């Protein structure tokens, strides 16, 4: 079946660094990857089909379970899609809180990414440093909604709860701590010779090629395409925030790393603006008691830490559950690039590149 000169190595679904249950079947020439096959589906829970039998509010907690390291962002994306379908007005205060939560969540997700990515390349200490800061964010979320991982933190039309008193001060305090911690990660990695040798020129992908593969988020921006849903199609309160979209030039693992490191800083900038300018007012708009969107379909995308997270929802206008619920998960689309990226590289680079794409298998399989 295969050439005897090739070694077929089945990496995963149980492997320390395939980030969950990803399975990559590698065809190796020595340690060089000749070709590969990315196998997914080990974490399929049928969230899309399940949603067709849940009412609109119940679906929010299903979205938590997709990208479980950035649950709040999934919530926001879903709620905004339904609001768009129902043409609901969300109060400004709720939109601000959503923005702050999204950015906190982005930092938490990137913390997890920098930790695991560095660990895949062998630098174990960064992982624990990053988790130390992620813990602070989880504390903030716990204070806001009581949960630490799957928040169920949004409602259609606004927020379930107002922010607790003093919470905004704690967020600002966190921003202050985080500022210096990002420098700490960078000290350990950015100019480290070994890190440079391991990431520079590894998994290069050009801008047009990245677009053709459907990559989004940092893997796309690392290749120099300035596409960011927050800037291009602002949602929540992003149109009122000042921030930059960092892009890379080379399109290699190192540039994707740099892009995410800069996103840490931009997120902090957004959080500061949001927390300082948080307006007074109601937290929920005028939402009917029974949520029953009119017949029709809509697509709405937001920028998750992994890339463009889109929801496509069809409502038949009669029942209290969606007719069709479809997610465009950024991890799934980014994973498409893996086969192209790892071709010709070594086994050691395969794990570096899986980390560099930052996939969450819960989202890939849903």
């Amino acid at each position, binding site marked *: 079946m295969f050439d005897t000169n090739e*070694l077929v*190595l*089945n990496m995963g679904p149980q*492997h*320390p*660094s395939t980030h969950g249950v990803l399975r990559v079947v590698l065809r190796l020439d020595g*340690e060089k990857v000749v070709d590969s096959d990315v196998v997914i589906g080990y974490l399929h829970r049928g969230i899309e089909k399940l949603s067709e039998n849940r009412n609109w509010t119940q679906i929010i907690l299903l979205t938590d379970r997709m990208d479980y390291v950035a649950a709040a962002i999934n919530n926001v994306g879903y709620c905004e899609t339904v609001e768009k379908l129902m043409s609901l007005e969300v109060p400004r205060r709720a939109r601000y809180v959503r923005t702050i939560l999204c950015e906190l969540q982005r930092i938490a997700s990137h913390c997890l990414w920098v930790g695991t990515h*560095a*660990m*895949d*390349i*062998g*630098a*174990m*200490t960064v992982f*624990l*440093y990053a988790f*130390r800061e992620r813990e602070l964010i989880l504390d903030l979320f716990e204070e806001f909604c009581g949960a630490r991982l799957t928040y169920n933190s949004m409602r259609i039309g606004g927020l379930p709860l107002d922010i607790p008193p003093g919470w905004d001060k704690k967020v600002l305090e966190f921003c202050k701590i985080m500022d210096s911690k990002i420098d700490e990660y960078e000290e*350990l*990695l950015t100019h*480290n010779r*070994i*890190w440079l*040798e*391991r990431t520079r020129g590894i998994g290069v992908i050009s801008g047009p090629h990245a677009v053709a593969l459907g990559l989004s988020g940092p893997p796309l921006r690392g290749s120099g395409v300035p596409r960011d849903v927050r800037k291009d199609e602002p949602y929540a309160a992003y149109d009122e925030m000042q921030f930059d979209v960092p892009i890379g030039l080379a399109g290699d693992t190192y540039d994707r790393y740099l892009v995410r490191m800069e996103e840490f800083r931009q997120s902090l900038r957004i959080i500061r603006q949001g927390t300082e300018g948080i307006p007074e007012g109601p937290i929920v708009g005028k939402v009917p008691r029974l949520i029953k969107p009119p017949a029709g379909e809509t697509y709405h995308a937001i920028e998750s830490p992994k890339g463009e997270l889109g929801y496509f929802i069809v409502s038949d206008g009669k029942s209290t559950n969606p007719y069709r619920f479809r997610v465009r998960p950024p991890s799934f689309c980014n994973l498409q690039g893996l086969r192209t990226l790892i071709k010709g590289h*070594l*086994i*050691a*680079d*395969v*794990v570096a590149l899986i980390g560099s794409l930052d996939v969450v298998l819960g989202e890939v399989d849903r």
Partner: protein
Amino acid sequence: MTPLLIAQIGLTLFVFVMLLSSAAVMVYVERKVAAMLQQRLGPYLVGPKGLLQPLADVIKLMFKEELRPLAADPLLFALAPILSATAAFAAFAVVPFGADTTLFGLLREPLRLQVADVNVAILVIFAIASMGVYGIVLAGWSSNSKYSLIGGLRSSAQMISYELSYGLALAGVLVIANSLSLSDIVNRQSGTWLGFLPRWFLFVQPLGFFIYMTAGIAETNRAPFDFPEAEQELVAGYHTEYSSMSFAMFFLAEYINMVTMSAVATDLFLGGWHGPFLPESLGWIWFLLKVAAILFFYVWMRWTLPRYRYDQLMRFGWKILLPLAVVNLLVTAAGVLYFGA
């Protein structure tokens, strides 16, 4: 039996037990230092401050089931860990760790604190260290598992590229000391230059020391050169299929190799048991301190640096370290010719 012979046998046993316990201590130190570097607590439940943790680890491993893959070669699979551990223990035999002693006047003739004073000690260490790699390669091969095989192949390639520069780095010291016996080499390093600088070969062979340390990390498969067992790539590399005590043997071998490496480095470059403030009879305290410092450095490196890639290490070994070692040797030889030993 003369008292000296009894003392000699006692010493041999003592070294064996000390090596075993040094591995246990290293397990504890590694975990504690890693925890310190990573701002966590580390083991603290078993015994005071977690001191009994290594013991708990060993007991746990002993009670684990010994698993062997069906397709594995039974003989080689059992032999590999034994080979690794034996080689690790044997290498320490020629390492002196203190000045001659009469055990507080108990013996009439002085006892040498060394299991065997071989006049070609360094060559013996080389030969035995190279034996150790058989354990790894055989483990990788006999497991009949792909991850193990790749780990084993990596380690053999790594050893070949590193043994050369490792040997050449030592040659510089040999040229200066004009001897292959480790105790002779240590004794050449007593006293000071200009009254304050100890006559350690580190100061005449800084490049040699650097090469020795780098190659030594590769030799003992420690991060950032731990490819044969690169956890994130090869699951556990050559010992993926091992469990229970045979796994513990590899673990033991790794730590003892580290201790031997550091002890040899201390003898060759850091003046062995010579140091200020302490009388010659207490020199072993200096020896232990120096070894501990090098071991700490190893642990520190492991938890700070990312891992190199296998091909990059090869390039580094052949294109940078080897030429450097050759240049070092040539310059040293020229210096010895010109200035005299």
